């Protein structure tokens, strides 16, 4: 098999991508800060393009190779397997890594001495980890590279570690990755015990005994992907990685765990209905919770992070339905659900990377992410605004963008389940889910009109925003080009969905074991043609109605009720925009508003008005703080065991030995 020319060339491409990134790591390690950032970015881009090339070659054909066999992890060697499921993710990795590579030089050049090397080293390790996780064919190799990926990304989260914020984020992220790795390890060991094999493709989740492993896996994936209630680390950690890598981080870290879930549970034919219910329930809560908190957020990047929670929830519900449909033997719905989950995962990765790059661009220009200090950036940052706008359209699932297609598939999954041959409760649930998805959709519309409207439109709310400069050079620099690249990818996928779905068809067949799936028939709406018709209509209206008298357009100030130009303080702010919705959900959000009016005649002539809004994150205070308190208490109690006296410690050794002897003789 290894001698097959396709296999060989694809394997060579993947291996050389890793080798190039490894070389980049070595060069940074030796050369330190002196290496030119353009050269390192070139290496990063080369690796990304090699990965893309490998994915393109092996698109239709699953290949297995063992070029890295000399690295053995004791239990299993580092074997690689590229099949139809890992190829789309490798493609996404290639795309996001090239975008990040283009954005890197201008980011790194602005960094202070000492941080450059740190950035490059961790980024290269992170990329190698990501790529090898996707290539791993057995559990051991997967776990090793998963750890490399997790730890290097934790390092990236802590890149700005002098700040308290980054420290906290890194700790929270580390905790989450520890929990998820622990559960994945447990699940892998369990499956190995069941099947006697470490190969991921040998594990089937259709058996009774695999239920525990499937649950462990679900917990692990929910923790790593940031699904409610394990999402608390996400709004802390997602904003922290340095600009360019935040695209890879946001686009792939959560998605890779979804990939694991698809590879094991969907491709492994999971038939536990409990898993399906758990996934749907967690996914639903997560999508509602995520979008609600995203809407209330005042920090641009945290808003995006919470929106990830929402989308991970939507993907998880789709996976849940896929499992459910598999249990009932409903092939059409299983196909729709798997296609929806896969396509939405990829689209979301792409769009979220785009949005994080946009937020990074804003942060670079204004030096803040607070929405209350932004505004009016559309004038000074037209490219960023355009890309962020496209990204927002897409993430709100507006036609004709790519996410509309995948969201439509999710809707269709639930809609078709409502008249399928399933128990009445499940059908009721599916129609309820259609309503909930509409609700979540309307909330995300509110959330992203807020993000675009408050950050980019209106008048600048601070001096820094008024003086924002988009690019470090005269033309668009790397960060802008990276955004444009991803934005174009979004639009292209959106207007040619049948082609994209045809490309994903092998992966969908792999997930559903249904050989008759035709990708292009899954999505019957001619989005591209609609976009074209819309474009023609808009331009003709522009020409014949608006443009007709364009000479008479007068530029004037915004309507001010005759008071004279209003200050920017009179503008709508992010918090006031979302306040009416916040009021409706004040119980969940723990939103409180206090108003203090003072002055002699308080009612008519107030001298000072002071309004404060408070939000306490309910999950953090009501669930996690007591748990953390318990851990604190436990550890401070246990510290008494550690007296430092050698005699006591010898006693412990002796007691442990006694216990072991007892256990060894009795079990």
């Amino acid at each position, binding site marked *: 098999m290894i001698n097959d020319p396709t296999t060989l060339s694809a394997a060579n491409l993947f291996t050389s991508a890793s080798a190039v990134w490894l070389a980049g790591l070595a060069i940074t390690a030796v050369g330190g800060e002196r290496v030119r950032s353009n050269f390192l970015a070139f290496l990063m881009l080369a690796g990304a393009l090699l990965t893309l090339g490998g994915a393109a070659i092996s698109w239709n054909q699953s290949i297995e190779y063992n070029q890295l066999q000399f690295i053995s992890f004791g239990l299993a060697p580092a074997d690689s397997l590229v099949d139809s499921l890992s190829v789309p993710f490798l493609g996404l990795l290639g795309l996001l890594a090239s975008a990040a590579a283009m954005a890197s030089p201008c980011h790194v050049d602005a960094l202070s001495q000492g941080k450059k090397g740190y950035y490059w080293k961790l980024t290269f390790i992170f990329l190698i980890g990501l790529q090898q996780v996707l290539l791993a064919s057995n559990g051991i190799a997967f776990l090793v590279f998963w750890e490399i990926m997790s730890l290097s990304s934790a390092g990236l989260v802590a890149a700005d570690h002098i700040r308290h914020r980054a420290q906290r984020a890194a700790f929270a992220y580390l905790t989450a990755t520890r929990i998820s790795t622990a559960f994945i390890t447990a699940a892998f060991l369990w499956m190995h015990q069941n099947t006697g094999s470490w190969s991921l493709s040998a594990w089937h989740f259709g058996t009774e005994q695999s239920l525990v492993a499937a649950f462990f896996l679900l917990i692990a994936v929910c923790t790593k992907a940031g699904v409610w209630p394990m999402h608390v680390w996400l709004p802390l950690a997602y904003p922290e990685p340095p600009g360019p890598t935040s695209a890879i981080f946001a686009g792939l870290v959560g998605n890779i765990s979804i990939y694991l879930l698809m590879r094991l549970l969907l491709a492994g034919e999971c038939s536990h209905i409990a898993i399906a219910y758990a996934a749907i329930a967690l996914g639903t809560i997560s999508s509602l919770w995520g979008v609600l908190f995203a809407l209330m957020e005042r920090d641009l990047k945290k808003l995006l992070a919470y929106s990830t929670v929402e989308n991970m929830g939507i993907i998880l519900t789709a996976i849940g339905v896929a499992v459910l449909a598999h249990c009932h033997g409903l092939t059409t719905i299983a196909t729709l659900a798997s296609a929806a989950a896969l396509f939405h995962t990829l689209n979301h990765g792409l769009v979220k990377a785009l949005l994080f790059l946009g937020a990074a661009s804003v942060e670079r220009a204004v030096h803040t992410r607070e929405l209350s200090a932004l505004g009016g950036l559309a004038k000074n940052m037209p490219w960023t605004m355009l890309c962020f706008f496209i990204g927002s*359209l897409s993430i709100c699932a*507006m036609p004709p963008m790519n996410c509309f297609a995948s969201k439509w598939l999710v809707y269709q999954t639930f809609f078709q389940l409502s008249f399928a041959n399933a128990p009445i409760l499940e059908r009721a649930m599916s129609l309820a889910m259609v309503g909930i998805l509409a609700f979540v959709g309307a909330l995300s519309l*509110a959330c992203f009109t807020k993000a675009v409207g408050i950050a980019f439109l209106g008048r600048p709310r601070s001096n820094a925003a008024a003086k924002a400069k988009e690019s470090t050079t005269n033309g668009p620099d790397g960060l802008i080009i990276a955004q444009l690249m991803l934005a174009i990818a979004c639009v292209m996928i959106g207007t040619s969905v049948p082609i994209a779905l045809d490309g994903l068809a092998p992966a969908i067949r792999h997930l559903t074991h249904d050989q008759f799936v035709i990708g292009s028939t899954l999505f019957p709406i001619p989005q591209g043609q609609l976009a074209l*018709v819309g474009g023609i209509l808009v331009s003709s209206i522009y020409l014949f109605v608006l443009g007709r008298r364009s000479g008479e357009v007068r*530029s004037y100030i915004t309507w001010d009720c005759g008071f004279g130009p209003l200050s920017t303080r009179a503008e709508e702010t992010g918090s006031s925009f979302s306040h009416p919705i916040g009021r409706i959900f004040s119980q969940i959000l723990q939103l409180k508003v206090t108003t203090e009016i003072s002055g002699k005649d308080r009612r008519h002539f107030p001298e000072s008005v002071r309004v404060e809004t408070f939000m306490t994150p309910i999950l953090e205070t009501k669930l996690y703080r007591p748990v953390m308190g318990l851990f604190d208490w436990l550890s401070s109690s246990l510290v008494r065991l550690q007296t430092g006296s050698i005699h006591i410690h010898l006693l412990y050794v002796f007691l442990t030995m006694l216990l072991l002897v007892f256990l060894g003789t009795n079990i």
Partner: protein
Amino acid sequence: MIAINTEAILETIAFVATFLLLPPLLVGIIRKTKARFQNRIGAPLLQPYFDLLKLLSKGETISKHTSWIFRSTAAINVSLLIILAFLAPWTSLRPFNLGADLFLVIYLLALTRFFTVLSALDAGSAFGGFGASREVTLALLVEPAVILCLAAIGSVSQTSDLGIAFSFDNVALINQPGLWFIAGCGLFLASLVELSRMPADDPTTHLELTMVHEAMILENSAANLALVEYAHFLKILILLGISSQCLLHAIPFFWHASQLVLALSSVLSIMILAASIAVIESVAVKLRWTKLPEFIAYSVAMSIFCVFIALSKNLN
């Protein structure tokens, strides 16, 4: 090989003429009815047309703080609503079926909202922001009701294509007057909110602080305003059209009526709904903002009834 069919061409011309010319008349009907209720003679029925023409010939003023979003929103919204008029089942006369997917229709409407809200925020005025914020809040409450009413109908006919579900020869839906009626009422109540009509918003007031839709379009003028107004009129036509189609389907007589009767009655029923909006606006008061969720709850409740009917229909 395209067979040229005179009848089809005539139907198409009639269809396009209806959706291009009818919308301002609907507003004229609403205004005239309201005027009569207030014992006034009121402006002529065709006044909205004159207003639009006048606006087209005026010089435009735009705020210097705006970006391309503000300038293109009206054009985009009109285009989107024209596309929607071709897709959505707002009348019984549809010479062609382009595949009106239920979720596509909802999301195209959401797309117009996306642009409207952004253009309201674009000038940076406090009023625009207020209106935008209220608009997204109302949309959030109404959206589930709209989608559930339509999804229930789609679920019974086992397709998400509204063109098929709303065609009069659909066997699955022929004996469902209850479902159609409740869905029609639910959609009508939801449309009142979506169209910024009375219990939710007062379209005639000049107090910007209480407005939703009017506050959002405060900065538009001349041709731009004409386009915004026309887009809004089109939206009235489409949303009232969908509700009236639901109500028509509830009347068993129409299942066997001829094409012409169906087409005429659909236009007529849209006008009747427009007049009933005027009646509601004359007898009801604008609700306080905090009371609105309770009003929308009626619409949501009706959509939930629809869901129950749909579920029991497919009971196996």
